[in-house]
């Protein structure tokens, strides 16, 4: 296994990795995605498991099959994935942040200041970055 961890089913992890690549633009819409066998060899997993991961994304309409050639990133896949990630943002990032802040006794004002300060560090000197 190249970098897959325990826990979530492998097929779901394969799907997550591909989805992440599509979301960050590594795989552009219209690009061919690696074949089942390529994924199996790379992650060192059973090809049936890799196929299940690919099918998961195809079922969501993120990939489309072109007969005889393989699977390709569907139009609108990136937008769909980013929308999904946005929906999950609160659950995955904001809530754990608030839980940990409460544990440490960091109050709202302090937290806002910390975010402002970190955001400044992250975005101030990155060209093309977004101002917070």
């Amino acid at each position, binding site marked *: *296994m190249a970098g897959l961890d*325990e826990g979530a*089913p492998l097929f779901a992890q394969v799907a997550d990795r591909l989805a992440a690549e599509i979301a960050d633009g590594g795989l552009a819409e219209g690009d061919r995605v690696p074949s089942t*066998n390529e994924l*199996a060899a790379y992650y*060192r997993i059973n*090809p049936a498991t890799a196929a299940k991961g690919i099918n998961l994304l195809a079922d969501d309409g993120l990939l489309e099959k072109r007969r005889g050639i393989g699977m390709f990133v569907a139009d609108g896949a990136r937008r769909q994935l980013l929308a999904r990630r946005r929906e999950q943002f609160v659950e995955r990032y904001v*809530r754990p942040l608030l839980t940990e802040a409460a544990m440490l006794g960091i109050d709202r004002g302090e937290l806002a200041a910390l975010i402002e300060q970190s955001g400044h560090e992250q975005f101030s000197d990155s060209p093309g970055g977004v101002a917070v």
Partner: protein
Amino acid sequence: MRPAISVTGLTRRYRDHVALEEVSAQIEEGSICGLLGRNGAGKTTLLRILAGQEFPSSGVVRVLGAPPAENEDVLRRMVFIREDQAYPDFKVGHALRAASWFYPNWDGELAGQLMADFGLRPNKAIKRLSRGMRSALGIAIGIAARADVTLFDEPYAGLDAVARQIFYDRLLADYAERPRTILLSTHLIDEAAALFERVVVIDRGRVVLDAAADGLRGVATTVSGPVLAVDDFTTGRPVWNRRRLGSQASVVTVGQLDEAARAKARALGLDLVPLTLQQLVVHAAGWPGAPETANLEGVSA
């Protein structure tokens, strides 16, 4: 899909003990299946029966649709590589040539590649090979035979981690190119886990788990954190193992955790670590301290 291997009510009794008891299992054609269990659990006996090298005391065995024992048609389509496979007193190249005559799908080019991968030289006498190199020879023959049914019984005695990785990689690559039924018995469960589509676990001659391998990931989870929070979280859940250290507790709970359960664990400040396949097998196979295997019933698919 039809099963390539099917055993029903298989029992093998020796004078003073029962090696297999009422074993029933089916292995789908074209899949890689892990045969897991402790030493002495009955894995080798089962494989020997499948390879037609031993007769069951009772029960039915079918390999490629027919009984394998003394059945030339089936045996030619099957390769069986044992732990510490013995060879007649000749050179590596002779063993490969003999294999090329016997196995109808033999791929000589692939055999040569595997020899190079493992650093095996054809003119070397087999009896002068190290244990690991003898295992490598068995692996090369087992893969290059490209047999419809490939049985590996702990094939890597004496092989280091790097060589074992070569084995897994080459097996997967060749399987991808030419899918076939592969049954691999191993006690190195975690390093081989991702290869398997299915796992069959036997313990003391009985099948204790027969399930899709990927479905077993996350089927049991170690929950750890403050005692009260752990108790709160695990109340009403099946639990295997409970350990406590001061104000901290660690509990193995059985069953997939949904997103709501994960969110609750996060809110309680608990750590969730899924059991690896190996840890799961330890529980399923009744290792000391493991609970009744009945807990896994809902898991088997």
